[in-house]
């Protein structure tokens, strides 16, 4: 039963990253590449009717995590306290940046909310990458000092950083060179992803330029991915053990590289949605490869005193998990119907939606 909910949770998390990821990417593109008002309008129109529903996936991920793996929810949310609260603040700025900009017609007002939207999107992408880095690197569960746990075995607390910024130091911080590296991977990957969405959903004058941006950034992404892989042994001496044990896991890295390499042909895609499919593939593959490499662990322990958190030792009780399947299947079907309707009504190019005009 835990395995079922773990798969559900990972699917939902990937869907969240793919969906809200294009919103973050659009925000980053908006920040760096949209100079003219009509380009900015095109970008906000492309995500306007969707971003709110996309963000709901995060709430749903949180809810399912809470219900199916309460110990993991409690341990990780209190342990990563500060960055999580900051993510909440950034989500608020992203939302009000998008929603309030069009309410007053004034250059200064618009400039403030443009920046709020862009900068918070950029930081959110960075934070989510750093979060993934923290999960694979692991934490000092039980806050062991001198071989003794100072708190219950599955609790911990991490400061934002420690002076060495090292992922192998005795006292870890959330921000170290390894997690920042994954943060950068996330920023670049989501920028590409957002640009692909804009190309797909608009006829903006920016599109030609964005294809070039995607093409160039893809080299950066490839370089960052190679660097990440080459330093991975610092946090996990034997990163391939799961892929040896379950050979079918190789499908995940294969998908990652299919997405990544496919994007080099971005300039010659006939259909405008193809680029978006490839970057979605990359995000899906990247995330699943990472979590597959530590499976069945969900949060590794960096000490030898306390065991890692695994899907078995953090799961809720059997009855609750079983009864949950019934309502979840109904809800999942409904969600699929809503999404179908939503994307059907707002299919095609979105330039004329008039988002934010009241």
């Amino acid at each position: 039963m835990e395995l079922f909910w773990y798969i559900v949770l990972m699917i939902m998390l990937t869907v969240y990253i793919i969906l809200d990821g294009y919103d973050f990417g659009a925000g980053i593109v908006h920040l760096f590449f949209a100079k003219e008002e009509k380009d900015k309008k095109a970008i906000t129109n492309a995500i306007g009717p969707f971003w709110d529903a996309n963000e709901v996936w995060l709430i749903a991920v949180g809810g399912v995590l809470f219900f199916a793996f309460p110990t993991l929810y409690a341990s990780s949310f209190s342990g990563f306290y500060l960055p999580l609260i900051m993510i909440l603040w950034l989500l608020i700025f992203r939302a009000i940046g998008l929603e309030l900009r069009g309410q007053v017609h004034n250059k200064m007002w618009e400039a403030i909310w443009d920046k709020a939207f862009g900068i918070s999107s950029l930081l959110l992408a960075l934070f989510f990458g750093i979060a993934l880095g923290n999960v694979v690197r692991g934490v000092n569960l039980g806050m062991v000092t001198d071989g003794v746990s100072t708190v219950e075995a599955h609790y911990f607390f991490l400061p934002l950083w420690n002076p060495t910024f090292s992922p192998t130091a005795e006292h870890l911080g959330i921000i170290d060179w390894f997690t920042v590296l994954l943060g950068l991977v996330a920023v670049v990957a989501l920028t590409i992803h957002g640009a692909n969405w804009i190309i797909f959903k608009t006829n903006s004058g920016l599109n030609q330029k964005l294809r070039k941006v995607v093409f160039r950034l893809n080299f950066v992404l490839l370089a960052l991915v190679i660097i990440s892989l080459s330093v991975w042994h610092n946090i996990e001496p034997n990163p391939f053990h799961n892929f040896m044990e379950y050979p079918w896991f190789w499908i995940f890295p294969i998908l990652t590289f299919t997405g990544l390499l496919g994007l080099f042909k971005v300039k010659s895609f006939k259909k405008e949605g193809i680029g978006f499919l490839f970057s979605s593939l990359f995000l899906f593959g990247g995330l699943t490869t990472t979590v597959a490499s530590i499976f069945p662990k969900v949060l590794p322990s960096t000490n030898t005193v306390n065991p890692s958190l695994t899907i078995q030792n953090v799961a809720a009780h059997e009855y609750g998990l079983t009864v949950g399947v019934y309502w979840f299947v109904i809800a999942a079907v409904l969600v699929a119907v809503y999404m179908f309707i939503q994307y059907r009504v707002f299919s095609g190019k979105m330039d004329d939606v008039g988002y934010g005009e009241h």
Partner: protein
Amino acid sequence: MEDMIFYDRMQFAFTITFHYLFPQLTMGLSLMIVYFKWKFLRSKIEKYNDAAKFWMKIFALNFAMGVVTGIPMEFQFGTNWAKFSELTGGIIGQTLAMEGMFSFFLESSFLGLFLFGEKLLGQKLHFLTGFLVFLGSWASGYLIIATHSWMQFPVGYEILENGKFVLNNFGALFSNPWLMPAYLHNQLASVITSSFVVAAIGAFYLLNNKHSDFGKLFVKTGVIFGLISSVLVAFPTGDWVAKNVAKHQPVAFAAMEGIFETETGGSEIVLIGQPDMENKKLDNKIAVPNVLSFLTYQNWEAEIKGLNEFDESLYPTNVPGLYYSYHIMVGLGTLFIGLMAIAALQLYRKKLYKSKWILWSILFMLPFPYIANTTGWYTAELGRQPWLVYNLLKTSEGISPTVSSGNTLFTLLGFIGLYLLLGLLFLMLAGKIINKGPETSNH
């Protein structure tokens, strides 16, 4: 340790109080927008559609505030109340996850269609999307109250040796006797808020001599919805909720009502007075004999246990706070019924739109339903303290073991600053929409 609990409680109280200013209007207003839209479909009079569109703008702004302040609520269970989440997640995680899956997806998917899709969808489908947004927001309220009810009156659980609460009866979560009275009471209270907001904006237009057609429509609709909901919130739903408290949380009931002594021959109902916890009595009391016994048990002489019968360790943590919250809620509720009854009478006599003092009263009353809703929730929550799960898990046992008080204070200050900004922006933009007024379509 004391500081940790204090800041954790302050942060939750502050963020939930601010958050709930928005959903109470969202839930009530979505019902009223559906009503306007329905009137338009039936009568084809454009005014109703214009009214619906006007309130949609307020709704959209309000909804966005509710969403952005709502996400921190779910996250805080894990960040600040980790132990509580770990121990009870298998149960309250069910209802909270269901809220995300069943109501938030429904609301957010169809809100976009409702706001941007009128032309694309046509009138009937547009009405349907509005109805689905309404349904989503009321389903959300239902699942939150189901969670709340379990904390007040735990059902369908067993406690394992390691202290974890596990679910053993899913159906019990929804047949909880606490749930339906609390849900109906809460939803009606949210209709009161929206009725007063709609009526107050209408009164504002009439007193200003602008948008008078809409002013009349808003005042009329607000008064009718307001009268019905203010009566129903007190009786029967408020009565049901109070009886649940009297039956299952007698010590909270005594504190709420300000009863220190058990009176033989029936308890009085306290209207005014200040609890003196040091001397265990109520100062400057004005009370009506025997009424509380009658209201609670339909028997003028029924015995109601006073606080002095209980050991002090069983008292709610903040007796005066609980007492004032409850009395403010009930006092305001009574005022709402009075004002709306007079306004409805004048409406019936066709004098309402001209009686300035009633219009002014309605306008001034605008903030008070928010206060009544907030103090109503305080009554429920302070009455449950010092418990998180009534009689089973203490609040002090639920906090995150590793988050220091300094970190919580830091985030609390951050939330205060950010929410002040949000509040200012909301008032400014809502004021702008209201000042501009509804637009009349030219067909």
